[in-house]
């Protein structure tokens, strides 16, 4: 069995883990990062979705809740989900942090936003270049303005983005400031080591101390034991809870899992709007419990998003250049759980989409449809599996409910949150406000799993912020 030692070992190389690795390495600590997925360098990223999606996404892109009505998309590669994200840095509403405080987290919006600002500056975040805004997004913006609404441009960390529209399968141009190319690269330059294809099986813990990690490396499943003064779990919502549970650490672990549940409407224009030609996602609009993001996927993913069966689906796909998509995103209740299922042998996500969650998604879907129709769409297909189309606002308003069950629509989330909620109260939270696991002196969690509730927007900059706030405590503990 191979053995490694480090001052700080970080499990997971996504947004939270990479930032902690960088902070630890630059403080002069021997830092080791263990990543379950492969390292996929820029030059090996292609635009072949059929091969890139299964290669980069956790469980080959097939992760779902046990009720099979919600797809969950997460990265499983060096850089984690950040490699596949649009690097959208949207700050959460301050009310979210008031809610977290009520749950017992010693955190406030001012501190979080100050930490957000550091990340925004560090990653040179900026609004999209006009030349990278697709025509379909312009139609969305125009439609919103017609209705007297004020959509915003997203702050994104895409470097000198060239607008290829393939963010969700990695950046083949090497401009996106994913964790792989930013925090992790800086951590490595400061002396940190990164082992990819290394899955941590469990944490050996005794009397409130994490003693070592057991891992398996590569296809050969070589055994690796890592001794470290401090252990930081950053395997993402779901993954971090699963590792703690596998290690016998159970107090409030796997609880309060939530999502940003998303469903898309598909609008058809008589002219070409070439949504694929430009940055995937540049404009957003917030509303009553929902967030709208005008977005566009490459062809294969777009086909999966487009509703309808057979000829209904085919007719829309034939008009790919005329289609525009808008996602309706709503924060769900924190009612989900991560469990180790004896039936499946690995972690499972137990979550039921509630009536309230569905209504929130529907509210966004209705507004998206109104906007796209105002923007000149000839028809808008709702997210129902069986094609349901509206051609005017009056027609939309005549529909009392667009869907009454999660089974009727395509629903997914690339933003799972919670599972190891943050609270000073060990009876409620899994970690305290410094992200240390209750009852352990050297075990921390730094990712979206510490969110006590869904923040309702893309979580990336908030993950950076909470990790940044915890970093000095982690460095001090090492």
């Amino acid at each position, binding site marked *: 069995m191979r053995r490694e030692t480090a001052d700080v070992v970080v499990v997971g190389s996504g947004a939270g883990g990479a930032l902690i690795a960088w902070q630890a390495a630059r403080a002069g600590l021997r830092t080791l990062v263990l990543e379950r997925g492969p390292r996929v360098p820029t030059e090996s990223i292609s635009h072949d*979705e059929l091969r890139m999606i299964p290669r980069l996404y956790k469980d080959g892109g*097939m992760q779902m809740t046990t009720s099979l009505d919600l797809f969950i998309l997460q990265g499983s590669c060096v850089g984690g989900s950040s490699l596949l994200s649009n690097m959208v840095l949207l700050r959460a509403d301050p009310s979210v942090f008031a809610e977290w405080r009520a749950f017992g987290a010693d955190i406030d919006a001012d501190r979080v936003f100050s930490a957000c600002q550091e990340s925004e500056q560090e990653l040179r975040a900026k609004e999209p270049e006009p030349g990278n805004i697709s025509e379909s997004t312009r139609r969305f913006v125009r439609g919103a303005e017609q209705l007297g609404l004020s959509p915003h441009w997203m702050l994104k960390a895409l470097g*000198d983005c060239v*607008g290829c*529209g393939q963010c969700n399968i990695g950046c083949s141009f090497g401009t996106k400031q994913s964790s792989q190319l930013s925090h992790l690269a800086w951590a490595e330059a400061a002396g940190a080591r990164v082992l990819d294809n290394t899955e941590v099986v469990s944490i050996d813990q005794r009397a409130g101390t994490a003693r070592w990690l057991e891992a398996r490396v590569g296809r050969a499943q070589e055994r690796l034991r890592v001794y470290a003064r401090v252990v930081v779990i950053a395997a993402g919502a779901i993954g971090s809870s699963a590792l703690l549970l596998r290690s016998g650490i159970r107090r409030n672990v796997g609880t309060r899992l939530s999502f940003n549940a998303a469903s898309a409407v598909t609008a058809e224009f008589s002219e070409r709007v*070439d949504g694929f030609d430009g940055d995937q996602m540049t404009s957003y609009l917030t509303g009553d419990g929902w967030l709208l993001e005008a977005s566009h996927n490459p062809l294969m993913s777009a086909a999966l998003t487009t509703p309808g069966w057979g*000829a209904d689906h085919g007719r829309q796909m034939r008009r790919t*250049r005329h289609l525009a998509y808008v996602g309706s995103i709503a924060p769900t209740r924190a009612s989900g759980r991560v469990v180790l299922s004896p039936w499946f042998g690995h972690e499972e996500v137990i979550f039921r989409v509630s009536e309230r969650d569905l209504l929130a998604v529907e509210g966004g879907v209705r507004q998206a449809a109104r906007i796209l129709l105002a923007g000149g769409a000839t028809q808008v297909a709702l997210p129902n599996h069986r094609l349901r189309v509206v051609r005017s606002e009056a027609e939309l308003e005549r529909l009392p409910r667009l869907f009454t069950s999660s089974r009727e629509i395509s629903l997914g989330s690339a933003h799972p949150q919670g599972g190891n909620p943050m609270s000073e109260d060990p009876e409620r939270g899994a970690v305290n406000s410094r992200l240390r696991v209750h009852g352990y002196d050297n075990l921390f969690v730094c990712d979206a799993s510490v969110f006590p509730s869904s923040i309702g927007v893309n979580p990336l900059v908030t993950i950076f912020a909470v990790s940044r706030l915890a970093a000095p405590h982690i460095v001090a503990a090492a």
Partner: protein
Amino acid sequence: MRVLEEIAYRALPRVRPGCALSDWEWRVLVAAAEVIQQGSPVVITKEKIADNVETFLIEGSSRRAWRVRVLLALIETATLARTGQPFSRLSLERRCELVATRFERGSTLWWLCAKIRYLVLLGIYGDDAAVNATGYVPVRDRARFAPEQSVRLRRSRLANQVMESARAS
């Protein structure tokens, strides 16, 4: 302990090395692809669609891939009670009717079977043939990536690399 997975692997037919599906499952997938591709603008054989899905499963080496195999077994056997025949043996018309009347609006069993739609769609639209059929313009063919633009792109990449090394140092 992986109870369901182990049961599945024991109950399902053997898979040849280098494949993700058994021949039996692949045939069911081909039969489903033939139905779901109806109306698609993409000219592609049903066998190629199934091959693309298998490529997707192999590339992902997902811990959940065995569920796809169970899904295919479910589709194949779900029709037995109703028609007396497995799904893949039904005529194309019967399969189309079944998908329209059951998969698209049925109970839990059929709703589960309907998940096959996602796999078949990725098999169709993940293929190169989908580009011409849909009018989708691949990145390399877009105006913004024309040769005169490529200097700007190269500069952008170079600037990024310089920035990274400066930061790292």
